[in-house]
C-alpha cells in the first residue's frame, strides 16, 4: 500500500497535441481518487501512464517511495481492472486470478490461499473452474476484480470498470467496489466518465478537460464549490442551469438580470471582491435545479428571488418533481458546455443551439412533490439566491468562491 503522486506529468501524441498537460495529483495512502471527465479529457491516458502502459513525455510518477517512470507495468506493483475486463479467455477464473502469482513464483499454497480469499471476498467461489465465456458480465467483472485483489498490490487502477454493465448491476458493483476498497485499504485510482460514479466512489475526485486538470477535491466540494464553469456544468444531474446575465447595482443590492428576470444576489456573494469587480458587466449565472422551488410551496420568499415562467414539462420522479421551464434569455453555449456534452449527448447540444437561436433557455427545477404546477402554467418559482453561482464569461472562472466556502461552513 502506498501513496501515488504525479508531478508535472504530460503526454504528447505524435501530432504534438497534449493528451495530458502538466498533471499534478496526489492520492494519499489508502484513499480512492476518481478521475472524471468527458471522453478525450485524458483521464484514461493518465491512468495508463500510472500503470506503465504509456510512456510519459515529461514529468514524474511516484508510487510509494519509488519513482516508477522507467519501470515496466509488472514491476510497479499495481493491479488494473480494465473496461472490458481483459480476462484471458483460455483460462479458468482461478487461472486468471493466479497467473500473476505464478509468474512471481509465489508458493502454491500461498497462491491457493490468496485466490480463495479473493474469491470469498467477491463471492465467486463456485465460478473458479469456469472460463470467461461461461460467465455473465457481472461475474466477469468480479473475476477481474479478483485478479487485482490477489496481487495485494500497492494500488488498484480501474479504467471504467463498470461501464459495460447494465444500470442496476452497475449500482450494485459500485458499492461492492467501495466495500472491498475500504476493507483492503488499497490506494485506488478510478477512471470514469460518469460523474455520479465519481461522486459516490471517490474520497476525492479530479475533473479533467482536454488534458488539463480542472479541480481536485472531495466530491461534495466539487459539487458545491466548483472552481469553474466546466466543473460546475459537469458535476450534477440534471446539470446546473446556466444563463448569461448582467450584474447590476440597484440601491444596496446586487442583481443579475437576464431576459425579463432579475434575481438579487445573496449577501455573502455580494460581499466578495471577485464579484464586485464584475458590477456593470456580464456574468454567467448558474442555478442548481434543487435550488429552485415552487412558490406555492415556499410562500415566504422575497420578490428578488422569484421567477414567473411558463412550465414546459413536468417529470414526476416520486420523491420529487422535475419542472422544465423557459427563461427568455439565450443559454450558455461556449466551449466548456460543448465539451461537457460532446461525447454522450449530441442531442443536448442540438437543443441548446436551437434555444440559442430563439433566445430562450430551458431550465430545470427540482421541486417538492407537493407542487401543483402543470405544463402550460405560468408558475411562480423561487430561487435560493444565497446559492447562486457566478462565472466570468471570458475565462469560466467561478466568482466569489471564497464567499461560498464560508456559506457552506455556516450551513
Amino acid at each position: 500500500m502506498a501513496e501515488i503522486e504525479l508531478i508535472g506529468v504530460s503526454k504528447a501524441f505524435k501530432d504534438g497535441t497534449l493528451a495530458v498537460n502538466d498533471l499534478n495529483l496526489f492520492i494519499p495512502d489508502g484513499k480512492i481518487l476518481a478521475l472524471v471527465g468527458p471522453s478525450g479529457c485524458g483521464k484514461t491516458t493518465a491512468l495508463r501512464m500510472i500503470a506503465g502502459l504509456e510512456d510519459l513525455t515529461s514529468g514524474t510518477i511516484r508510487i510509494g517511495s519509488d519513482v516508477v517512470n522507467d519501470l515496466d507495468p509488472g514491476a510497479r506493483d499495481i493491479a488494473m481492472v480494465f473496461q472490458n475486463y481483459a480476462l484471458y479467455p483460455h483460462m479458468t477464473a482461478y487461472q486468471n486470478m493466479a497467473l500473476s502469482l505464478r509468474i512471481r513464483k509465489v508458493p502454491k499454497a500461498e497462491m491457493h490461499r490468496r485466490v480463495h480469499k479473493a474469491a470469498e471476498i467477491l463471492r465467486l467461489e463456485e465460478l473458479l473452474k469456469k472460463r470467461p465465456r461461461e460467465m455473465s458480465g457481472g461475474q466477469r467483472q468480479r473475476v477481474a476484480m479478483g485478479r487485482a485483489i490477489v496481487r495485494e498490490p500497492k494500488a488498484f487502477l480501474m479504467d471504467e470498470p463498470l461501464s459495460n454493465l447494465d444500470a442496476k448491476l452497475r449500482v450494485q458493483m459500485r458499492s461492492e467496489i467501495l466495500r472491498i476498497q475500504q476493507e483492503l485499504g488499497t490506494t485506488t485510482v478510478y477512471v470514469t466518465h460518469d460523474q455520479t460514479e465519481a461522486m459516490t466512489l471517490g474520497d476525492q475526485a479530479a475533473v479533467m478537460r482536454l488534458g488539463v486538470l480542472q479541480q481536485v477535491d472531495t466530491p461534495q466540494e466539487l459539487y458545491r464549490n466548483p472552481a469553474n464553469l466546466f466543473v460546475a456544468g459537469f458535476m450534477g444531474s440534471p446539470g446546473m442551469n446556466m444563463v448569461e446575465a448582467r450584474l447590476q447595482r440597484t440601491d444596496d443590492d446586487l442583481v443579475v438580470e437576464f431576459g425579463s428576470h432579475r434575481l438579487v444576489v445573496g449577501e455573502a456573494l455580494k460581499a466578495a471582491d471577485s464579484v464586485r469587480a464584475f458590477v456593470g458587466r456580464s456574468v454567467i449565472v448558474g442555478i442548481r435545479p434543487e435550488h429552485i422551488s415552487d412558490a406555492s410551496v415556499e410562500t415566504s420568499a422575497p420578490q428578488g428571488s422569484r421567477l414567473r415562467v411558463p412550465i414546459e414539462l413536468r417529470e414526476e420522479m416520486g420523491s420529487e418533481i422535475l419542472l422544465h421551464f423557459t427563461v427568455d434569455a439565450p443559454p450558455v453555449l461556449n466551449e466548456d458546455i460543448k465539451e461537457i456534452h460532446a461525447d454522450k449527448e449530441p442531442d443536448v447540444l442540438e437543443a441548446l443551439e436551437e434555444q440559442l437561436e430563439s433566445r430562450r433557455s430551458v431550465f430545470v427545477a427540482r421541486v417538492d412533490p407537493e407542487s401543483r404546477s402543470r405544463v402550460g402554467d405560468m408558475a411562480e418559482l423561487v430561487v435560493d439566491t444565497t446559492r447562486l453561482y457566478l462565472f466570468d464569461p471570458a475565462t469560466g472562472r467561478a466568482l466569489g468562491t471564497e464567499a461560498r466556502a464560508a456559506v457552506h461552513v455556516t450551513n
Partner: protein
Amino acid sequence: MTKPRRRVLGRSRKREERSAYLFIAPWIAGFLLFWLAPMAISVVLSLMDWDLLSTPKWIGLQNYAELFFNDRTFWVSVGVTLKYIVLSVPLYLVTGLLLSLLLNLKIRGITVFRTILFIPSILSGVAVAVLWVAMLNPDTGAVNDVLRQIGISSPPRWLQDPSWAVPSIVLVGLWGIGGGAIIYLSGLQNIGAQLYEAARIDGAGAFQRFRFVTLPMLTPTLLFVLLTSLIDAFQVFDTAYVLGGSQGGVGDSLRFYLINLYNAGFVGGRFGYASAMAWILVLAAAAVILIIFRTSGRWVYYEYDPESER
C-alpha cells in the same frame, strides 16, 4: 508521413523494441539467407556461364541474348505457357464463379456437395496427374472409353497429340475447380443480404441482381483469383512433369516455362542460363501483376479499404 522528429525512446519502449527484434529475428535471418542472398547470387549468376564443376565464366548479357535470339526451345516454352494461360485463366475464372453460385444456393445437402467438389483441390498435382495420365490414355483410358460409348468413334489422343496436350492439362485443372469456387464462395457470403433486398425492392430480377449486386461486390475476390491463377499459370510444373516428363512431352507440346528452366539447370547443368530464365519469368510475372493492379482501380469496387487499418 510523420515528421522526421527524433525523440529518445523511453526505457520501456527500448526494451519493447529489443524484444521485437528478437521475435522477428527468424524471419530476418530467413530473409537474408533464403531470399536476399539467393537473389543477389541469381543476378550475378545470370551473367555467368557455370556448370557447377568448372570455374564460372563472366559472359555479361550473353545468356539473355542467347535466350532471346538463339534458343528455339525457350520460345517454344514461352508459347506453351502463354497458350496455357490464355486457355486456362479465363476458363477457370468463369467456371469457378459459376460453380460458386451453384454452391451458394441454400438447398438441402449443399455442404456435402461443397465438400466433395473441394476435395480435388487439396490433392497433389502429382496424384492428380497420375490419375489423369491413366484416365486420358487414348486407347485404354476411361475418358475415351466413355466418349466411344456415346458414339464418338475417334476421340482425341489427348497427351499423345501435340495439339491436344495443353488443352488436356487445362481440362485436368478443371477437375480441381472447386478450390477456386470456395474462395468465390466466401466472397459471395460476405455480400450483405440488405443489398439484395434493396435490389429486389428496386425491382431487379435474378439476372439483374447478379449483374448489379453480385458481380460488382465480388470484384475484389475476382482480382484475387485472377492474380493467383495467373501466378500459378506461370509456374506450371508438377502436372506437366508427370504428364510429359522433363523433356516436355510429345513434340515439346508440354514444354512449360518451368519445365524448360528445370531442364536447362538441373538436367543440363547450365545454372547461369537457368538463372537468366528465372529473372525473365520474375520480370514478366511482375509486369503482368503490375498492369493488373494498375488497371484494377477501374473495375474493382471496395466496400471499405481493407488496408486502412494499418
